[in-house]
Structures are given as C-alpha cells and as structure tokens.
C-alpha cells in the first residue's frame, strides 16, 4: 500500500495505523495514551494528523486511523502543532507534578505545569509497593490497559466519567483487596510518574544487569537496576521466557539481599552460643568433625541436603562431595518433598521425568489447559498470567481441579472440587468416560504405546457414579471435563496438589496415562507438565543430588555410573542412600550422626515438624550453609554464610528444562561466599584434589558427565538459555519431548494404571476435617527470604486457615477468629479466613514457623517415590480459649 507522509512516498502493509507506520519511519508523533499499538484507545488526542484523501481533507487520530491507499498525511503542520500545544496546555493547568516521559513532552512544547488543587486520593495508595500521585495522573488510562489488556487482571479501572474520571482499584479499594498482583505493569506503563515503585529512586548512574529470578521454577529473567552495589528496582526482562512479565516476588522480592538479618560471618556454636569465627577456623572445624564422624561411625552415618535454590554447579559438586569425599549416597534435596513422584511416575510411563512441553508452545498452541493441583496464579504467577491470557484472548478452554476456589477457577469452563487425595479415582473416571464414548486416540495408542488392555481393564469399574462417590464431584462435571479434554489439543499442568500424596506416583502416572490415551503427548500445546517449585529444582535433580541417581539420572552400579567414576577418579558407593524423610528417621534413631545442610530449612519445610526438630537435635554434628539464621540453622553447630544467587554466577535450570545463566547483580554482602567455594574448601581440607576456579570450570565437567547438557556452554547460554536434551554444540535444544519416540527400551510409552487408594489418614469422628497445605502469592516456601521483606509481611502478616462458610458457622467461627487446629501430631493456632474451599477441607499455608502447618502434617510416604503426604492430614478445629 502506498501513502505519503510529510511529502515522502512510503510503502506500508495494509492494516497498520498511521501511528505505527510513522513510528517505523522514525517520525515522532506524540501519543500519551497509546500503549498497545494493535489496540489503541484514542483518548489523549495528541497524535492528531492532517489527512488528504482524494478531494477530502480532514484531521484524525493517527493511532486509531488505519492507512489507506493514496493517503497524504501531514504529521507536524503548524495548525496540528498548535492543537497539540492547546491539548498539553489544558493538561498542564491541573497537573503540576507530572514527571517522566510526559514531562519531556511539556518541555519540548515549552509549556509550564501548573495547578494547586489537591485531588482526592483513591484508596489504592494504601499498599507497600506502589505509590500513586493524583496530581500527576492525566487519565491517559495506560495503566488500565496494562492491567487489563496485557495482564488480564482488571484491577485498575476508571471511576466516573468526563472531568471527574479517576483511576481506582476494584470498587475504590486498597490494591490488595481489589486482587492486585503487584506485577508493576501499571508502573511500567505510566508516562507521567503518577504510578511508581516505592523502592525506586532516581540515580545518576544506574546499571542494568539481567539475571534469573531466585524464586519459583518458571525461571523469569529479571532486569535489575543497580546503583552503588545496591539494587534500586527490578522488572521482568523482555529477553526471558517471561517476555517482560513478572510477579510480586520477581519485582519486589530481591529486597532480602540487603536485609540486616543476613549472615555475614561464619559462626561456631560454643556453650550453646554462636560465636563469629574466621572462614579458616570454620572450614577446618567442619572438615575435622566430618572426618572424625566418618572414621568413628562410617561414611553412611553422614547425610547431606543439597538445595534447589543453589546453582547446577553447586548441586553438582555438593553431591560429588558427598559421594567421593564423604563416601555415601546419602544425598537428597527438597525435590523429595515436591516432585519425587513426578520423576518416578513420569519415568515409568514416558521414560523421562521432566516437563514434556515448553512455555512457548503451551502459550500459543494449547486449545485446553487441564490444571490440577496447581494454584498457578499464586505459585507460578507468570504461567498463571499466560493461561489467563490464552483463555481471554484466544478462547482457550480451561478445566481446573482443585478443592479451593483458586483464582484460575474464575476463568474455568469446569471447576472440579475433588476431595483431597482422590485424584486417581477422578482421572481413572475421566479415562473410563473417554473409552466408553470412543474418544480415545486409537492410532496413537496403537503406534506409540503398550499396555492399553491393562488400563482398559482397571478403569472399567470407575464409572461416573462410583467416582462421584469417592471424589464428591457431581458426575456431570466429570463427564464434561473428560469430553472437553479428549476433544481438544490439551495440556495437563500440575504441581504439588498431585505429587504430595502417598499416592503421588499413582497420581502422576494416571495423568500421563490420560495424556497417552488421547494422544496428547509429543505435540505442541499438549503434554504432561509438572510445574517445578524452586528456581533450580529441575537442575538439582539433573545434577544427581538424589540418593539413588547420579548426574544425568544415571543409575547406580550401571555402565553409566562406571563412566562417571572414570571422570571423577574414584569409586562411587554402590548402595542407595537415604531420602529426606528417611534421613530424619535415621537421625532420630542415632543412625545418622552428622548432617551437612545447604540452603534448605527442613525444620519448617518437612512434615511432622516436632519429629524433624527432635531428629536434628539428636545429631552429633550439624553444619548449615544459608543466607539467614533459619529455624534449621539455629539448631546447627556451625553456620556458614552463603552468597545469594543475585551475588554469584552459575546456571539454573527452569521448569521447562531450560538451562539459564546467572549474572552477578551485586557483590556478596559481608564475608559471605558462594556455596561452590565453601564446598570445595571443605573438600580440599578433607583431602580432595579439587581446583575449580569458577562456576564455569565446574560446568565444563558437568557437560562431560551429563549427556543432556553436553552441547551447552556458557557462551551459548548468553541469550535465552537452552533446553535439554542438547547433545551437541550445534544442537538447538529440545522444546518438546517425545515427538517421535519415547526414551524407553522399545521407544514406546507404557500405560501404567493404578487403583485408587485412600490417603494414609482420612477424616474420622475425632479428626473430622482434611487439612491441605500450600503457598500464598506473597510468600515463598518457609519464608526465609520473603519474610525478611516488610512489604510482603504487611500484605500477609501471618498464617491463616481457610475454611468453608458453613463449617465456620457450625463451629461458631467468624472471619479473623483465632482457631486451634489439631492433628495426631500436634496443634497450632491460626486465624480463620472464611472463603471458597470445599466443605470439610481447610487450607493452611506453610510459610510461617510460629504457626507451622508442618506440625500437623503427616510424614507417611509414597511407597515408590518416598514423598510425604503433605496435602492430606486429618485435623480437628475449635475456637481458641
């Protein structure tokens, strides 16, 4: 299409706006309300241009006017510039405090900002992270567009119209009450400085350093703005998997780095009190105590917990230290408590334990999301936003299975509220319906799988009526969900609501069976997608921080193990080590004498807390390496201060198997050291001949040992990371697993059906409620990081128990009342929160050590994956005396 702008002939694509075309040609047309070029709102009027078409001459907004053949456009003629000046003068009359991008425009047009009228302040200002200055707000609605059109949150809205229009949150509420996600998209969109991050300050010299977020497994790239070795503010990077998105933790959660509570010096406990010592003294002491225990009781009397918060390099040398220097396979990490059942369950069915698909194809190609046991918008917010967008913008369907009214259930076609612990019955029921209606993918079953007959046999008895009885879900909903799932390109997304059960492996395998049955594996927008909880939980497993598997998931005593021994120059112990919960049991019985815990807080994170603390106290020697004096560190003999991931280099592997490079954002505080350095120093003192100079040295060894990482180098990671398997240096990485064959002996996936078995503890007369635990949006895990941040504590100050209104009424409990929750293992006091949850079920977040949900939880284990049943415990409730 040919048009003329300011006398110059231009060829442009049909469908574009004049503003878009002008921008592409470097013509600067002012536009204050324009945020999303494809969806202009045409509110400010500044982009007005003069258009001549045939015999007609007229004026129109460049943002909302599409180009047309033969248009002659003038963008800066005198009368247009006059009009712009008039518009700006009118705005300037009442907006003395305009800053930022808009202020430059006023300067350019030589217009002075005026106005003394104080405007009423909306309630949204009552929040710890985002400031709002009504004197600077010109009602351009960019913030509203960001909140609704980009984020699908619809929290910021307009109140009233015309001269009285103003921006409010919800029904003029506080941001939190209106459901704000504190993603900061509004702040980034605001051209006048009316909305700002409270932490942000203007510094002359600011560096932007991009690294990976230290929180969940999505692995967002975050741009950190640093001045004087201090982070000033942060926001989601356009270069990451998050494509500019972020959440409250990515945007504001870095503030723990400069917390006064950071450990800064090594500590040794003497006469019950910690004393500051030098690194040499601390390291010598740790090495000699570990050596003594090893000599006295044997290597298997020592156990180590590696960390899903540490880098791949650190996990790799931690497990190498345990295996080669201590001489035991007693090494595990918190994946045992989150996705151990994923690794076992998916391995059995698909031959690989990782997320099958990628964020990119899930975002663009899935026709349906089946979200089960994942409060995605809270625990993996950027993926939550992705799902909300897909539903709202391109009409993707959504099935949510969760006993709570989680945010995603508002967007769902079907919301199944199953009884906790009845997932196998639910999924078998869905498969029963699919088979009985002939909706299975016969070709896929024939060509790509084995064991279908056995599955058909087992799911036969799971009729809708039978499943309704077990799960408490009306059969119509189960049928609707099954048919929807089977008739779309469907992706399963799950998390701890599936895995943390005695039937965890069965749950995971059943989901994989369901995907196989309908051919929803190995294609874009499908798959079985576990969302990993920690930033590097995928990597910690890949690196072999597991008692039964070596780096690259090599089994003990196999050919692969022998190959690793060659690289390591020594013998790897043959017998499997202990898992997390087994270590605690062994410690309580005096079989484990010494423990080395890196970056984990089992005293709060693990089930049956009283027992865990008793076990840790029973140790002869405990060394803890952490950023903070965690509840576990308090029980230690030696505490070693570690650098945070924002203070070091290395790699993390995100939930979609993407290996990503960290960049040091700030220098380590105090005398803290990176974990890899600490481990190596202890190893050296125990006689190891290790000489890694930097994380890259370690990574080069990892490439040699872990086949999936072989083609990955630090240089190749500089852009957006690489997804394993990446076998060669010219390999582009693998977006989708199992496209042509499964990594099994015969290349086929194997249906592995399970019968429904009740949870280890079911409600009875004495303990009539089911307790289920999880995360909140604002806090993370045991709160070691997030509870150091004032803003997060203001938003969620303490633990609560979510309870159904009718249950609350029966017990005479009102919202906010103190209630006592008691299980067979202990009791805690929390405040009641009446809300949307299945009758008979209560939910308590586990972040809060002072009212720890894990005092109540059950440490009964899944027989195959040894994951404890954190999601189901029988409890009783009463109002506090």
């Amino acid at each position, binding site marked *: 299409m040919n048009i003329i702008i300011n006398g110059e002939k231009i060829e442009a694509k049909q469908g574009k706006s004049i503003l878009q075309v002008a921008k592409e040609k470097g013509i600067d047309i002012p536009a204050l309300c324009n945020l999303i070029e494809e969806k202009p709102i045409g509110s400010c009027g500044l982009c007005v241009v003069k258009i001549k078409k045939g015999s007609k001459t007229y004026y129109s907004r460049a943002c909302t006017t599409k180009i047309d053949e033969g248009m002659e456009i003038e963008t800066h003629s005198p009368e247009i510039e006059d009009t712009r000046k008039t518009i700006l003068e009118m705005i300037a009359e009442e907006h003395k405090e305009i800053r930022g991008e808009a202020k430059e425009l006023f300067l350019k047009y030589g217009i002075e900002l005026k106005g003394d009228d104080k405007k009423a302040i909306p309630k949204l200002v009552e929040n710890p992270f985002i400031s709002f200055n009504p004197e600077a707000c010109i009602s351009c609605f960019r913030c509203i567009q960001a909140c609704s059109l980009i984020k699908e949150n619809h929290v910021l*809205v307009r109140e*009233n119209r015309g001269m009285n229009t103003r921006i409010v949150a919800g029904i003029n509420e506080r941001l939190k009450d*209106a*459901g704000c996600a504190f993603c900061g998209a509004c702040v980034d969109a605001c051209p006048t400085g009316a909305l700002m991050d409270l932490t942000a300050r203007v510094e002359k010299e600011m560096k932007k350093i991009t690294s990976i977020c230290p929180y969940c497994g999505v692995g967002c790239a975050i741009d950190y703005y640093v001045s004087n070795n201090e982070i000033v503010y942060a926001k989601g990077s356009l270069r990451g998997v998050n494509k500019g998105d972020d959440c409250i933790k990515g945007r504001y959660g870095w503030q723990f780095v400069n917390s006064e509570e950071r450990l800064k010096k090594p500590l040794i406990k003497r006469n019950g009190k910690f004393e500051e010592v030098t690194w040499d003294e601390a390291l010598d002491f740790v090495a000699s105590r570990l050596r003594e225990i090893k000599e006295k009781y044997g290597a298997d009397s020592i156990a180590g917990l590696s960390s899903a918060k540490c880098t791949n390099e650190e996990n790799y040398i931690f497990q190498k230290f345990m295996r080669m220097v201590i001489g035991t396979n007693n090494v595990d990490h918190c994946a045992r408590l989150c996705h151990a059942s994923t690794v076992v369950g998916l391995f059995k069915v698909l031959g690989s334990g990782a997320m099958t698909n990628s964020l990119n194809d899930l975002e663009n190609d899935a026709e349906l999301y089946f979200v089960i046991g994942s409060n995605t918008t809270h625990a993996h917010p950027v993926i939550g936003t992705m799902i909300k967008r897909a539903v709202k913008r391109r009409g993707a369907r959504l099935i949510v299975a969760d006993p709570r009214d989680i945010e995603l259930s508002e967007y769902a076609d079907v919301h199944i509220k199953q009884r906790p612990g009845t997932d196998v019955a639910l999924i078998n029921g869905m498969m029963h319906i699919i088979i009985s209606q002939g909706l299975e993918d016969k070709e896929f079953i024939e060509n790509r799988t084995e064991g279908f007959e056995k599955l058909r046999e087992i799911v036969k008895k799971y009729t809708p009526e039978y499943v309704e009885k077990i799960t408490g879900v009306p059969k119509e909903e189960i049928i609707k969900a099954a048919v929807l799932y089977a008739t779309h390109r469907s992706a399963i997304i799950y998390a701890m609501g599936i895995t943390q059960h005695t039937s965890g492996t069965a749950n995971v395998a059943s989901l994989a069976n369901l995907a196989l049955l309908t051919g929803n594996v190995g294609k874009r927008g499908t798959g079985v997608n576990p969302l990993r909880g920690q930033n590097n939980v995928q990597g910690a497993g890949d690196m072999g921080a597991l008692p039964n598997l070596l780096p690259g998931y090599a089994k003990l005593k196999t050919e692969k193990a022998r190959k690793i021994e060659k690289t390591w120059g020594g013998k790897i112990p043959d017998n499997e080590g202990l898992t997390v919960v087994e270590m605690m049991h062994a410690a309580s019985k005096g079989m484990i004498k010494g423990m080395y815990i890196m970056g984990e807080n089992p005293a709060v994170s693990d089930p049956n807390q009283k027992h865990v603390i008793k076990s840790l106290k029973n140790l002869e020697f405990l060394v803890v390496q952490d950023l903070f004096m965690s509840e576990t560190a308090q029980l230690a003999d030696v505490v070693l201060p570690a650098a945070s991931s924002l203070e070091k280099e290395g790699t993390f592997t995100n939930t979609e198997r993407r290996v990503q490079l960290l960049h040091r954002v700030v220098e380590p505080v105090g005398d803290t050291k990176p974990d890899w350095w600490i481990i190596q120093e202890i190893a050296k003192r125990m006689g190891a001949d290790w000489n890694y100079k930097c994380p890259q040295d370690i990574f080069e060894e990892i490439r040699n040992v872990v086949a999936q990482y072989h083609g990955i180098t630090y240089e190749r990671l500089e852009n957006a990371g690489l997804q394993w398997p990446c076998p060669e240096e010219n390999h582009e990485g693998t977006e989708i697993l199992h496209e042509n064959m499964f990594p099994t002996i015969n290349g086929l996936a194997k249906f592995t059906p399970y019968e429904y078995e009740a949870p280890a503890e079911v409600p009875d007369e004495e303990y009539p409620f089911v307790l289920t635990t999880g995360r909140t949006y604002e806090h993370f895990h045991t709160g070691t990081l997030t509870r150091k941040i004032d803003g997060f504590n203001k938003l969620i100050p303490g633990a609560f128990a979510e309870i159904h209104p009718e249950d609350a009424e029966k017990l005479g409990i009102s919202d906010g009342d103190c209630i006592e929750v008691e299980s067979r293992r202990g009791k805690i006091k929390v405040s009641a929160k009446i809300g949307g949850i299945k009758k008979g079920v209560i939910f308590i977040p586990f972040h809060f050590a002072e009212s720890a949900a894990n005092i109540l939880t059950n440490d009964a284990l899944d027989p195959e994956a040894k994951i404890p049943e954190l999601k189901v415990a029988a409890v009783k409730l009463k109002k506090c005396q």
Partner: protein
Amino acid sequence: MEDKVVEIIEKHRKDDAKLLAILHDVQDKFGYIPEDAIKIIARELKMKKGEIYDTASFYSFFRFKPEGRHEVLVCDCIVCHIKGAEDIIKRLEDEFKVTMGETTKDGKYTFKMVEGLGHCEESPVMMVDGKLYGNLTPDRAVEILRRCEQ
C-alpha cells in the same frame, strides 16, 4: 441479598447487553448498588468486580450509597443564586452536617444541588420529595425540612 441478586441475574442471563439491565434491577430492588451486589454480579458473569464498577460508575443514574428517605433538591441556578441560594445551601450544610450530594448520617435526607427547577418567579427554591417550596430564606428551608421529620 445473595438470593435476590442471583434471581435478578438469572432473569437477564440470556440477554446480550445484560449488565446494564441487571444493574438497573439491582438499584430498583435496593435503592442503590451495594458493593456486595457488585461482587455477586462479577462472580456470576465471570467478570472482575472492577470491570462492573468501571461500567456502572460511568452512568450518573447509578448510586453506590443508599439514598436518604427524603430527596432534597436545592436550586443554584443564576436567578436563585442572585436571590441568596448560597446562604441557604450553607445553612443547610451546617444544620444537617453534610455537603451537597451527600446523605445525612441518620439516613433521612439526601441533598442534591441542581440548576433550574423551572420556578424562577418564586426563587430561591428547593424541592423536597417532588414538592416545590419557593421564596425561601435559610430559616424557612430548615423549618420545612424539620417539619417533614415529624
């Protein structure tokens, strides 16, 4: 409230432009649009409460606070203004401890300022529950309202 609001929503569920119809019926039922009703409508229509409020607050005929039992319209047109409407307004605001546009704490009166009740010959004027009172003085205006309390 829940049942009543849901009943209204069900009545309009199949309409294309149902939100405004629902908001009208809710206001007719309760005299205004309560916050809780907005939350119920949002839940039922799978919208966010802010989206409902954004739309509703666009229209001046929707109210978000309960109205008083008596509606008092005080005219401040140019004629009434010249003849002392300002003094009347000030006196009423002092006496009933409100500003124009608000409802008294006891829920008896809602005061609104209007421009032109069409009775300039009797100005200054006010209208209480649809009945016109002319040739006002500040004292007389207060007296009229006190009388309708009894």
